[in-house]
């Protein structure tokens, strides 16, 4: 596809979950859209079922310099290529809870969101119908109100049954994990076969990734997708009052530009603020959209609480989805573990399908073992392993920030520094979750129970939204306070992290922003 030479309605930077969702809606709304993706083009044929192969889906662009006591794990969490990080995401799609939107008002921590759950609810409902979520809303007793899921829940395999028994013995409840994965034929998409290859990319269309859901819609409606196009700067008007397009470098190394009435930055949590800061000008000396000084601030990352066990029974731990089979949100109340100095919410993703190798593979859970001991463990664990992961809320810390480094990349753009140290109350919550998880596994009859180190899961913040232009970067639709025809999309908008996976909320926000943009197009691009 050839890039249009004339001015377009919108240029979208990034082709992941947020970018593709907005691009599809704008294109369907008869807007001329260009999507620029820094990484390579991808098709379903590229999604080979191999944990080694899957590493190509991770970030491969310019290095990010990580610091702090708990680095965000950028390469592992980010994506590269058409579809972005959503190509290797696990499609665990719970909703944020009502209280997540009012952290300052209710708990005197972090910030309030500029919207309430009720504002986002219809867009959660819209996105779940569009993308397809399997689950059981009635069983999810913790779930805020919303339409029931459009597909029946994920089947329960032996690993899930065993761990669920442990939860029950501890007086805790489990429910089917809400997954954006097909459990039956859905809108022409085949049903999942529960092979556990989600992390390597799902080529059959069972998992709701951009190649399956939004990019085909965008392209069908005339959007032009250009891969290997690295955006280096957002261009602004002489007055500084609006943006006019973006500058990018193509595969041949040639510097080009796309001029547009609307610029959407959807290049993931790290690259969005990096681009804003790197687009400083006379009118925006501290970075584009940064009159508040908040661009890059409040970077958050869920701490993963990893709990493992070995059972005498055959667990069939290779079956299911990479995200798991069941969910528990008994500890979503923010003060559940306050006696341990903890604060915040978490959920358990229970009974995840595992492979032998890679960072989340069976072998990596016991890094202390080597030699014949490792062989023996692998043979045993291949059949008796079970695991679950806690998604621990990360309270925002102002010092957890993205800044520009003195070093520049090959295009002359400063590299990003990202510093992250977990809030003390979040760290205590992670510890409390590990203790709870081990008790569950012992109750389930595990003959061995162990835990993993704190791992970083998801990256949020950095371009947070809020009502106060002096304390936030964007409004509730993602428009930069300083420059209304510049929109930021993705988890970077989150003022707080909640204790659930972010992708469903990213989709709901993108749907809400798109509706607003289309309804108010002329005034926004004026």
């Amino acid at each position, binding site marked *: 596809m050839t890039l249009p030479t004339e001015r377009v309605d919108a240029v979208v930077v990034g082709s992941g979950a947020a970018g593709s969702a907005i691009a599809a809606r704008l294109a369907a709304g008869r807007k001329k859209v260009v999507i620029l993706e820094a990484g*390579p083009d991808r098709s379903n*044929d590229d*999604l*080979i*079922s*191999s*944990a*080694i*192969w899957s*590493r*190509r889906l*991770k*970030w*491969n662009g310019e*290095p990010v*310099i*990580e610091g702090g006591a708990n*680095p965000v*794990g950028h*390469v*592992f969490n980010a994506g590269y290529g058409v579809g972005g990080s959503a190509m290797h995401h696990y499609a665990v799609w719970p909703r944020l809870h009502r209280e997540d939107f009012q952290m300052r008002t209710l708990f005197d921590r972090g910030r309030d969101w500029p919207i309430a759950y009720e504002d986002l609810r219809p867009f959660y409902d819209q996105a779940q119908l569009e993308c397809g979520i399997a689950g059981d809303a009635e069983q999810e007793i913790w779930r805020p109100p919303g339409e029931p899921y459009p597909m029946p829940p994920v089947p329960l395999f032996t690993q899930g049954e065993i761990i669920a028994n442990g939860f029950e013995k501890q007086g805790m409840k489990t429910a089917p994990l809400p997954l954006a994965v097909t459990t039956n034929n859905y809108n022409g998409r085949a049903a999942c*076969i529960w*092979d*556990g*290859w989600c992390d390597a990319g*799902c*080529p*059959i269309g069972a998992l709701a990734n951009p190649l399956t859901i939004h990019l085909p819609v965008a392209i069908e409606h005339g959007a032009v997708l250009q891969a290997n196009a690295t955006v280096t700067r957002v261009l602004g008007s002489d007055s500084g009052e609006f943006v006019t397009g973006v500058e990018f470098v193509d595969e041949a190394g040639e510097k080009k530009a796309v001029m547009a009435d609307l610029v959407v930055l959807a290049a993931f949590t790290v690259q969005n603020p990096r681009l804003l800061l790197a687009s400083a000008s006379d009118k925006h000396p501290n970075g584009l959209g940064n009159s508040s000084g908040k661009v890059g601030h409040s970077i958050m990352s869920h701490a993963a609480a990893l709990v493992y066990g070995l059972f005498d029974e055959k667990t069939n731990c*290779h079956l299911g989805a990479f995200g798991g089979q069941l969910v528990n949100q008994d500890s979503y109340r923010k003060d559940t573990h306050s006696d341990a100095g903890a604060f915040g919410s978490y959920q358990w993703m229970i009974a995840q399908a595992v*492979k*032998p*190798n*890679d*960072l989340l*593979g069976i*072998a*990596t859970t016991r*890094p*202390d073992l*080597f*030699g*014949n001991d*490792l*062989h023996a463990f*692998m*043979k045993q664990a*291949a*059949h008796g392993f079970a695991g679950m992961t806690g998604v621990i809320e990360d309270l925002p810390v102002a010092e957890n920030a993205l800044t520009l480094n003195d070093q520049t990349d090959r295009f002359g753009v400063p590299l990003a520094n990202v510093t992250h140290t977990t809030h003390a109350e979040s760290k205590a919550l992670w510890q409390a979750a590990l203790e709870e998880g081990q008790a569950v596994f012992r109750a389930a009859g595990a003959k061995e129970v162990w835990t993993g180190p704190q791992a970083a899961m998801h990256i949020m913040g950095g371009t947070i939204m809020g009502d106060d232009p002096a304390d936030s970067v964007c409004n509730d639709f993602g428009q930069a306070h300083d420059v209304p025809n510049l929109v930021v999309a993705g988890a970077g908008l989150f003022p707080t992290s909640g204790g659930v996976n972010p992708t469903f909320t990213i989709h709901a926000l993108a749907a809400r922003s798109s509706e607003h943009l289309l309804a108010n197009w002329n005034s926004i691009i004026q």
Partner: protein
Amino acid sequence: MPQSRRTFIRNSGIGLLTFYIGGCEVEVTPEEARQQQIPFQVLNPQEVLTLEALGNVLLPGSATAGLAHFIDHQLNASPQDQMLMLKYLGVNPPFASFYSGGLAGLDAVAGTQHGSLFSEMREEQQLELVGQIARGNPDGWSGPPAAFFYFVVRNDAVDVLYGTKQGIEDLGIPYMAHIEPPSRWGE
């Protein structure tokens, strides 16, 4: 002649390595590369000896399965095409210095403690020294943090032995690929 990016990617995904020998592209598995003594592109002969000895302590059989050729091949690829787990462990490319530094550190400590190279030590001495680096930097260690180096190479060995269709099925787990690699590692 460098192989094309497409060839590299295709072959890496299915467990084959492509070498340019005698004017021809030769596609082999890591194990075959080792058996055929195909030249290394990045690792030097001493590094190969040390790496294979380390691999066999970390996961017996991994050297025979082609651990050194697997790592060498990935190190010779462009950063974008590398498939080493190291890439998402907080280390920015190029990665060759990570491996050369760690292997040199291992030999240096072996020399200090036993007066020999790691590959020439007795098996029980190797086991003991690997136990040391798993816990932290032994006296005289240089290069990347020893425990991290242990973690990375151990996982490389797991990749080669248990990360393939063959390896997974050897554990009694069905591979169940959507897009199945047409060949196992080591075939």
